[in-house]
């Protein structure tokens, strides 16, 4: 077990290193540099000041040297300072993590629970009316682009029928304290979480339906029924446990995708999370912030994948440490 953990750790670190180097190269391949963006936000800037800023940020040094310095800092747990805001990247990320976590966890959890429930329900009568309805809805949810869905929901439920807020995470004038604030945040969370969750809900319901149908034809189900177990017990205890495995796999593997989807949803809803920070930092060529967010996300994805592995073992005791 210890050997396994150690090897996983080494694998994970190698992966993180690869992610950092690759991102570093990609980010620097984009045209323009952060000092030009700052000059743009300033309405123009003198040559001397631009040179001073470049020297301050170390942008005047050769790229491999910059990479070396960055890797050295990351190894010491220092993500550096944002060029644009001149604030520590770690505190910028720290400010945004709760918002993204709330959005991603709510939507994934809701999608997983509702998706599996719908999938299982429709597998009971694969050709029934309920099943067909769920099928159609899944297809729509699966194929609709997230940003389009988001905007549509805003127009419908925030503008035409102003039931939900247009954007943001809190009431603008809120001071962000107390129970009222929690309710306020939850209220603002509904539309973005629904938008982000719908795509995954569709996938999970399709997947769990197919898995259930597959499992229900297996020999051990026939055995269980032959033993005289109640249909309910067969369905929810024997079949579901096996059918849910592929859904969990996808859930774990897709966590990275969900984070990517969050970028779009956060942009549409002005949700102050990591995704929006990453997107806006790209536009500003704020290298340390982009790299910091990407590094953080890759660590989260790796950790999530490990947790998925762990969940496997809980759901299916046959899966041993390999």
């Amino acid at each position, binding site marked *: 077990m210890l050997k396994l953990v150690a090897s996983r750790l080494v694998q994970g670190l190698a992966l993180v290193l690869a992610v950092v180097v690759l991102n570093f190269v990609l980010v620097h391949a984009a045209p323009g540099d952060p000092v030009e963006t700052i000059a743009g936000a*300033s*309405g123009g800037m003198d040559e001397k*000041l631009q040179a001073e800023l470049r020297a301050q940020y170390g942008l005047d040094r050769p790229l491999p040297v910059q990479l070396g310095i960055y890797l050295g800092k990351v190894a010491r747990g220092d993500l550096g300072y944002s060029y644009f805001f001149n604030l520590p990247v770690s505190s910028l990320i720290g400010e945004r993590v709760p918002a993204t976590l709330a959005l991603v966890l709510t939507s994934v959890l809701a999608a997983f629970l509702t998706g599996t429930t719908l999938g299982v329900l429709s597998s009971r009568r694969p050709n029934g009316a309920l099943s067909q309805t769920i099928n159609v809805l899944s297809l729509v949810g699966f194929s609709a682009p997230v940003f389009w869905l988001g905007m549509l929901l805003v127009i419908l439920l925030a503008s035409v029928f102003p039931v939900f807020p247009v954007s943001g995470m809190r009431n603008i004038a809120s001071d962000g304290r107390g129970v009222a604030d929690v309710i306020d945040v939850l209220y603002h969370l509904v539309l973005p979480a629904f938008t982000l969750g719908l795509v995954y809900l569709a996938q999970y319901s399709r997947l769990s339906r197919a898995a259930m149908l597959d499992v229900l034809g297996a020999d051990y189900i026939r055995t269980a029924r032959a033993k005289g177990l109640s249909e309910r017990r067969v369905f929810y205890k024997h079949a579901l446990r096996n059918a849910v495995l592929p859904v969990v796999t996808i859930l774990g593997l897709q966590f990275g995708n969900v984070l990517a989807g969050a970028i779009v949803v956060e942009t549409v809803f002005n949700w102050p999370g990591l995704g929006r920070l990453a997107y806006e930092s790209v536009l500003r060529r704020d290298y340390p912030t982009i790299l910091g967010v990407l590094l953080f996300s890759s660590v989260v994805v790796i950790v999530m994948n490990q947790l998925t592995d762990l969940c496997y073992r809980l759901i299916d005791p046959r899966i041993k440490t390999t």
Partner: protein
Amino acid sequence: MNLLNFSRRNALALALLAGLPAVHSLAATDTPTRGGTLVLGSTQALRHVNGAVQSGIATAVPSTQIFASPLRFDDKWNAQPYLAEKWSLAADGKSLTLNLRKGAVFHDGKPITSEDVAFSIMAIKANHPFTTMMGPVEKVETPDPYTAIIRMSAPHPAIVLAMSPALCPILPKHIYGDGTDLKVHPRNSTDVVGSGPFRLTEFKAGQRLVLERFDKFFLAGKPYLDKIIVNINPDSNSLLLGLERGEIQMIPYATNSTELKRVAANPALNLTNKGFDGIGAINWLAFNTAKKPLNDVNVRKAIAMTIDKKFISKALHGGFSQPADGPIVAGSPFAIPDLITYPLDLKKAAEMLDAAGYKAGADGERFKLTIDYLPGQDEQQKNVAEYIRAQLKKVGVMVDVRASADFPAWAKRMATHDFDLSMDVVFNWGDPIIGVHRTYLSTNIRPIVWTNTQSYNNPKVDELLNTAGGLLDPTKRKAYYATFQKIVTDELPIHFINNTPYHTASSKKVMNVPTTVWGPASPYDEVYLK
């Protein structure tokens, strides 16, 4: 009162063209009431709030609330006392004496003295992106705590305007004079100690700012508002929805015609196009005069003749913008009315291209060009570029519209002079020395965006600008700028298209919406809620 009333807007334009001062029209009639929160919607994320080292409107809006400046300006370019009660520019134009108000304190309670003024002005000279603004300043003398004398190496008429809130925030020396490079000072956004009517109490990078009333502000009884919240959302449409729902009370710098129409039609909202003469934003078509065939002035003139500015203002900008004809924005005291213009004439344009040696080939094509545009402002930039492409095709010039993914990508092309034509928007920033000279001086042909990237070179223009920059007498100075404007509109390194139609949209509850020359980038100490 509807400022969008067409006849009124024309009258205003005429008044401006005639060089007359604009009429102040948003005067309040009621007595101001204390209290309340003003929520301001902004599409731009700001780096920090220290306007001494960071220019641009995103920082200027909060910076002018947090920091006071020696002087402020009314809507007719007249200097008014602010932190300085009195001021005098020496006859030789080489020193400006500021007599500071007594009893003024910083947000931490320490007195504001001439030492702080001296520190701030030298900090601005060393760090502010606009180096010409304080360029000739040599030192600031402080004979006593309430007198600061700015000494300059040469007469510098722009120095008085440089004392504006947006350009000269007074910082506490005891906080910012600790030796840390001011451009990256940690207290530019956290634990900020200012001198203005509001204190910064929350700074959430790229999200929001909270400013609260400073009770010991040096103007007794002001400000009226208790709180200002700056809500940042890159999507202007969401901001407008917020304004319509009453969650936001004011959106400055709005330009989109669809949104402006919605505001104008809403009885609960006000709309004004006043308050933007100071920044003086001009939307223009830049020519790369170093490249063939654009090095030929007649080719540039022919291109100008294919563009109908009235169509652009009316059809593309929904009637909200006004055509611009020269390098100095019409609201500036240095603008002149009788500029050389290029009315739409496709036939003449074709003839001029023939005469210049660019006859159409068998396929009707003369030559190919590319046009770039500043991304993110489609209505002002991209749509005009598309229109120019269509117009030039009519005279056999094939134009390829090159999109840039984002600002840095476009800025890179400009900086490396890698363009034929480009739409652009450049600000005058009040005095021509700050925002106009930079585009035309041959000494400023640099690998940097918003310099003379057109590679325009005329020694006469250099001489005119350099002389005008040192003249104290406004009439004489204007005469030099008049000749400059004539030459530039004749030689056409740039074809001016329109004034960026900046507007402030606000709830009818907001009184004294700032409409001075610096408009929303000036202190909101007199703004109140009804």
